[in-house]
Structures are given as C-alpha cells and as structure tokens.
C-alpha cells in the first residue's frame, strides 16, 4: 500500500468491539474498503458478519472502536444517520410492500413534494428511470411489486437505496434467494455500480460467488476479522480454511449401518401450489433403518414442501409409509407420536417457542408423549427432569431450564431441538439443515449425535445446503431440481463441485 497515493478508503472500521449476549460478538474488527471496489465479507453463519454490518448501518452501536467514512470519523445513532452519510443497505429479506408499485415503494418515506404538499410522481418516475438506466437495473417504475420475481425485487431494493443517494451499498447475503442465472444478473448490476464510483460491501458465505465478483475479500471468524485477501491469489479451499480455522470438523460416516428394513417409504409424492403447479413432483424414495438419505438441491426446489408433506403439515398426493403402515392420511401429531422426528429448517418459526422457557420447549412437538404428559395433563416435573437430561447430554449451554429459548445462541437452541427430537426413540428423523447457523463446535456435536442414532438404527432424511455435510453424512444421495428427484449420486465418489453442478441441472444427462 502506498500511504499517500491511495485515496481515503470509503469505509474504515478500526478495533470494533460489540459485546452481545449469547451469540458471537465482534472483537477487534478491522476493515478497510476502497472506494469503487466490491468488497466481500465472508464467514460462517453466526461468525458475526451481520452484526458488523448492522453496526456499519447504525442499527447497532459498537461498544468500542471507530468507524470512518471517506476518512472522517462518524457515529451512527440510527440507520438514518448512516443513510445521511451515504450508506444504504439491501437486506436479505426484502422490505417491500407487495401491493404498491415499484415507484411507490422506492419513494416511500422520502417522497418528493411539489410545492411542499402533493407528491411529485413524475419527477420521481424520471429519477427512477435515470438510475435504472445508468446502472442497467432494468426496473419499470410502474410495475406492481407482487408481479415481480425475486431478482427484480432485489433490484428494486438496490434502486431504493440508490434513490436515497447511497454511495456505499451493503448487501446482506444477496444471493441466498436467487437462482444461478439471477446471481449472474445481480453481479452484472454490481459491476455497473462500481463502474459509476459506488462501493459495494457484499456479505456471503458462498465462496465461489465471492471469488468471482469481489475485488477484495475479508474473512471473519468468530467475530473477528482474520485476514483480507485478494481473490486472484487465493482459492475457495484456502478461504474455507480461513473461515473455520484449522480445527475444521469433518462430516463423515464410518462403516455402513444400512439394513434391509425399510423405515420410511415415499411413493409418488406430489405437492401442488394453490394454482395447481407441482412444487414437489412425483417424488419416490425409501430410507432403510440405519441409513441417511441426503437430498441435495438449490434452495427453493421443493425441499421445504417435501418435508412438510412428510410431516403432514402440507396436503399432498401419493403415499407415505412408516415401516409397513400407511400414514398418508395421518395428522402431524399422529405421525410424530409414531416416531417421526423433525428438525425444522427454520428453528425460530417452526422449532421453538422463543418466549417460553426451555422446559416448555421440550414439550413442544411431544405434547402427548411421556415424559411430558400423563393422559390429558401436562407432566411438569417429568418434562423438567427430561429437559435437564437433554441440556446435560447434548451440552446445551444455559444457566438453567427456566430461561427463555430466545436467550440462547443459535447453536444451543439447535442442540436443544436435536436432543428433543432424538428423545423417545424416533424411527425416522427428518433433518432440515440441522447445522445451519450454528458454530463449529455445535456442528461437530450434532453430527456425532446423528451418527450415533444412525448406528442405533435410525433412518434419517437429511436436507442441507452444505454440500460437504451432504456428501460426508449421507449413505445415499439424491438430487432434487424443480421438485423432481433428477438423479442419484454416489456420495463416496462425488466432489462438492460435481454435486453443485448436478444440482443446477448441468450434467443432468449423466
């Protein structure tokens, strides 16, 4: 670096510390983002990326440290301070009003006025067209947001922050919701932005994407910045090592425990949208006792619906058999009582009562079973005792079983769920993203528990976005695309790269 020749960095964070209860805090974070760069911040889920970006966007205040924008130190009390300083944020989950047009969404909250009273729609429309054309966003100000696809909505979000004069854009996991082609379009838009002198902070944990779009990459691990590297001089593997540190747990199964006894058989399972389009299309598979069946696929290809159909949460056509019993017409509760465990994809929405104590969360999903219930009554002391057992056996880090689930970190919440679903000798476990958003230690522990249960004869349906986990933990691996099982892959000799291309439909003829 030439001290004087380089201009002031657009963003500079020095020694940021954020103490935050229960979850990974930020420590000694140092980050320098050059103007006109796409700067990627990568790290595992829960490494502290989002907290850091919230600090930069004024949603959280750092306990220590300094933020400089274009060389000048700043203090943000709220996002409006950050916006005033030219920072804009595109959230992972879109914040758009569906029944408004693009134009109305964009100007919402900063409406241009004519003579101080009437909203000046024509001026706004003109500006939106200008911005859209300048950066090649291709957004029509008069379309209704509900008629737009995911990629278009994201561009509306980008337009929204540009309209407010942002020069520095933070994009929080922008590709998580996109299909590969939309990712390419997004990257083209980002390149357009930096060409015009904007600066982009791109948060992700998808290394291939980061390597293809970023000018510089900063790796964050356990709340602190580890290293900043140039994408030309590194590899995805090297980045992965930086992200998790050296003690990377390896998902692997030792000897096969697969038996001949079929535990779960699904035949011709089809789930349709209210409009009649199949989201899960004629899916059939069998899982035997002691077998882990992995389902690989780009998110949004019917995995969530498949799980909900098996759990009886969503109506479906086809048959589902548990051991030899046809359970197709059973309620969710009956399925659960009969030994189908479920680790849901979204633990906050489907797995926990956040504002209830841990022991009540132990009961959830097992309301009718021992030791939680005796006839129509809740067995408080039985449930409490068993919660203490789970906390102990599954190493849930908590001061007690009376704290609310919301007070625990994601990894500990997940360990509680895993412990709960493993209780009462399940026959089948439906595990959706069992280690998503948990720290490395919890991940290793959850894998251990899955392996042990498999050895005892548990049949597992494993759905994951983590290809290493899928390859390492599955006895059998199938690829889902567009709601159909498109092919089977041998997990013993497939690389993540091959699996990844199979998921996108490439090499489907093989």
């Amino acid at each position: 670096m030439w001290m004087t020749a380089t201009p002031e960095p657009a963003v500079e964070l020095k020694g940021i510390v954020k103490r935050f209860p229960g979850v990974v805090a930020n420590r000694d974070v140092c980050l320098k983002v050059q103007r006109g760069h796409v700067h990627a911040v990568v790290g595992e889920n829960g490494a502290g990326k989002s907290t850091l970006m919230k600090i930069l966007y004024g949603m959280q205040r750092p306990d220590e440290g300094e933020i400089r924008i274009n060389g000048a130190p700043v203090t943000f009390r709220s996002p409006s301070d950050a916006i005033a300083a030219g920072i804009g944020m595109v959230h992972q989950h879109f914040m758009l009003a569906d029944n408004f047009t693009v134009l109305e969404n964009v100007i919402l909250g900063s409406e241009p006025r004519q003579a101080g009273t009437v909203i000046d729609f024509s001026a706004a429309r003109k500006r939106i067209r200008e911005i859209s054309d300048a950066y090649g966003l291709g957004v029509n100000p008069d379309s209704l947001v509900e008629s737009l696809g995911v990629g278009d909505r994201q561009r509306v979000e980008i337009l929204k922050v540009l309209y407010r004069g942002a020069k520095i854009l933070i994009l929080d996991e922008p590709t998580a919701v996109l299909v590969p082609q939309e990712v390419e379009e997004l990257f083209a838009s980002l390149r357009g932005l930096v060409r015009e002198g904007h600066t982009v902070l791109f948060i992700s944990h998808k290394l291939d994407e980061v390597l293809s779009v970023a000018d510089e990459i900063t790796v964050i691990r356990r709340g602190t910045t580890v290293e900043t590297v140039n994408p030309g001089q590194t590899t995805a593997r090297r980045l992965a090592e930086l992200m998790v540190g050296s003690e990377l747990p390896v998902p692997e199964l030792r000897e096969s425990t697969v038996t001949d006894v079929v535990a779960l058989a699904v035949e011709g399972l089809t789930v349709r949208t209210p409009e009649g389009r199949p989201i899960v299309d004629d899916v059939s598979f069998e899982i035997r006792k002691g077998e882990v069946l992995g389902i690989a696929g780009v998110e949004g290809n019917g995995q969530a619906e498949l799980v909900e159909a098996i759990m009886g949460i969503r109506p479906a056509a086809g048959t589902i058999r548990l051991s030899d019993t046809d359970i197709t017409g059973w309620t969710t509760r009956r399925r659960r009582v009969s030994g189908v465990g479920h680790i849901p994809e979204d633990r906050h929405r489907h797995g926990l009562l956040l504002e209830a104590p841990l022991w009540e969360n132990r009961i959830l999903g097992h309301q009718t079973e021992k030791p939680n219930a005796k006839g129509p009554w809740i067995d408080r002391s039985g449930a409490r005792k068993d919660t203490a057992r789970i906390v102990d056996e599954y190493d849930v880090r908590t001061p007690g079983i009376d704290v609310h689930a919301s007070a625990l970190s994601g990894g500990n919440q997940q360990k509680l769920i895993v412990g709960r679903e493993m209780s009462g000798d399940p026959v089948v476990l439906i595990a959706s993203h069992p280690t998503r958003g948990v720290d490395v230690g919890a991940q290793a522990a959850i894998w251990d528990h899955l392996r042990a249960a498999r050895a005892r004869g548990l049949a597992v349906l494993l759905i994951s976005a983590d290809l290493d986990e899928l390859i390492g933990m599955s006895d059998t691996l199938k690829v889902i695309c567009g709601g159909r099982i498109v092919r089977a892959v041998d997990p013993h000799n497939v690389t993540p790269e091959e699996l990844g291309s199979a998921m996108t439909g490439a090499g489907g003829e093989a």
Partner: protein
Amino acid sequence: MISRFNVRSAALTLVAPVLAIVLAVGITTVVLLVSGDEPLETFGYMVDYGFQPRTMVLTLNLATTYYFSALAVAIGFRMNLFNIGVDGQYRLAALIAAAVGGAVTLPAPLHVTLTVLVAVLVGACWAGLAGLLKATRGVSEVISTIMLNVIATGLGAWLLHTDRLAVAVSGSNNIGTKPIGPSGQVPGLHLIAGTEVKVYGFVVVAALAGIGFHFMLNSTRFGFDLRATGRSESAAVASGVNVKKMIVGTMVLSGAVAGLVGMPQLLGASYSYSLDFPTGLGFTGIAIALLGRNNPLGIAFGALLWSFLTNSASILDVHQISKEIVIIMQGVIVLSVVVAYELVRRYRKSAEQRRVGQELAATAEPVKG
C-alpha cells in the same frame, strides 16, 4: 441466584400497571385542573365514598361480572384470538337462560344449574359460530364477532317481546322475561359488615373460574397447545397442533365463560332479563383483560380497580364534578398499560439474554480465538 431473579421478575411485573395508574392519575389531575376542579379534593371524595361498606359491596359485585367478561376475552387472547363478541354472547345467553329459568320450577341446585348450563351453552354456541367461520372459511374472528354482536342485539330484541319470551313488568312499561322463582335464585353473602347489601353468591363461581382458567392453561395438554398456538402458530402447526380444532375449541370455551357474564346479575339481583339489563360489559372485559395481562390474578385486580373507579365516581355528581373524569382515567390506564407492558417485555428479554451471556461467560470456558 434464581430466587433473587424471581423477586426482580415479580417486581417487573408490577411496574407496568403501577406506572399506568400513576400516569392516569397524573393526566386526570391535569384534566381536573383545566376544568376548574380541585384534584386532591376530587380524589378524596372518590376514596371516601369508594371505601364505604355499601360501595365496597357494589364494587365487588360489579367486579364479579367484569371478571367473567375479562376471563372470556383472555382465553381468546392467549391464543391470539380477539373475541370482541363477548358482549353479544352474554346478552343472548342471559336472555335465553332467563327465559328457561323463569319457565321451570325445580329443586334449588338443579334449577340454578339448568339456568347456568343454558347460559353457558348459548354463549359457547354463539362464539363457536365465529370459531367455525374462521376455521372453515378463514373469516377473521374480529369481523365475525362484531357482526354476531349486532345479530345478537337484533335477535334479542325480537325474542324479548310479549309475543315470545317477555311479559310486562308490573308497575312499569318495562318488559322482561318471567321472573325466576326462589328455587332458581342464588342467595347473596354477607361478606362486608355495616351494610344490608349482599355480595353476589357468584363471586365464589368467579374465583373458581379463575382457578380453573389457570389450571387449564398451565396443567393440561389443551392449555399447552393453546398457549403454544398463541405464541407461535407456525411452531404449533409443526409440533402437531391442529390449529383449526384449537380455534373452534378456544372460541367455544371463551363463549362458555362469556355466557356466565350475565349470571351474577340475573340470578343474584334482577331474576329477570328485561330491557334495562346491563349492556356493554363485553367491551369492558377487553380492557380489563389487557390490564390484567390475561392472567387470572391480574384480571381480578383489574376488575376490582375498574369497578372501584366506576362505583366511586357516582359521588362526584353530588359535588357537581362530572363523573366522566373516571372514563378518561380508565382510558388512560388501558392505553398506558399496553405500552408499559411492551416496554417491560422488551427490557426483560434483553436483560435475560444479557444475564445468560454473563453467567455462561463466568462459569464456562475461557475459550479464546
């Protein structure tokens, strides 16, 4: 450690309602000053009058009625169902129960039981309609219960006619159902000395209902499912709760309790449902359920406070102070208590997260890096 936390937690629970009442007194003081009345004097009149034996009995009696109403609303609230229809449910229930009770003569316990059972059934059915509409057609219970209130009013007016359920009340141009005979009346209790007025016997039933509510919520599977659905419907569905069944069940239960609202008055004082039977109790119940945080003990305090304010205000007319001042006070209490509860809830949540973080950091791993 734990016990200290519990003391703090209990204190926090009380902070919100106390703050709300203080704020309400403050705002009422300002209103009194503006309208040219002496605030201290006014509150003095109310306290003096409110603590006279006769007023205390009236307060207890009105509170009993409020209690059922608030309990009915709270059952719905615990599952995120807003039963605005308690008003229509209790009026229809009381009318039909009064007609049935007036038409028969049975041995005392049976007579009372029959009347109360009819009231409970009518309330349950009327609320159950809203539950069914929501479960099968997705109609918001807010809308349907409001409309059912209107229908109940119309139906009540039609039924309460001398051609149908009503007879003329002697010595007035009022009409009402045939009075319930002595075997169907619930005797009052001499709980407070210094007055001839008796406390409704139904105060015992109200206490039992409160205990039953607490027990149902905390010790039964139904109660667990109800609370789980209220906290997170998506998690409840994933856990195997049949939400549609729960909606109907909860509305039926809420309506059953609503059916009891008119009973203290009917079986303890008027013995007949006439044109001047009290109305609007269902809406007061909503306010009290909010104030009492859907908790049976909290609701009891809320009902007593509300009833005390209403009853003690009657003296203000004598001193040429408009008693609507109390309505302002009640309104401010509800508004501020809702805000205060939310603030306390947020504070609690972050305090707990902080505490858990600290305790874990203190006890466990000195992990670095």
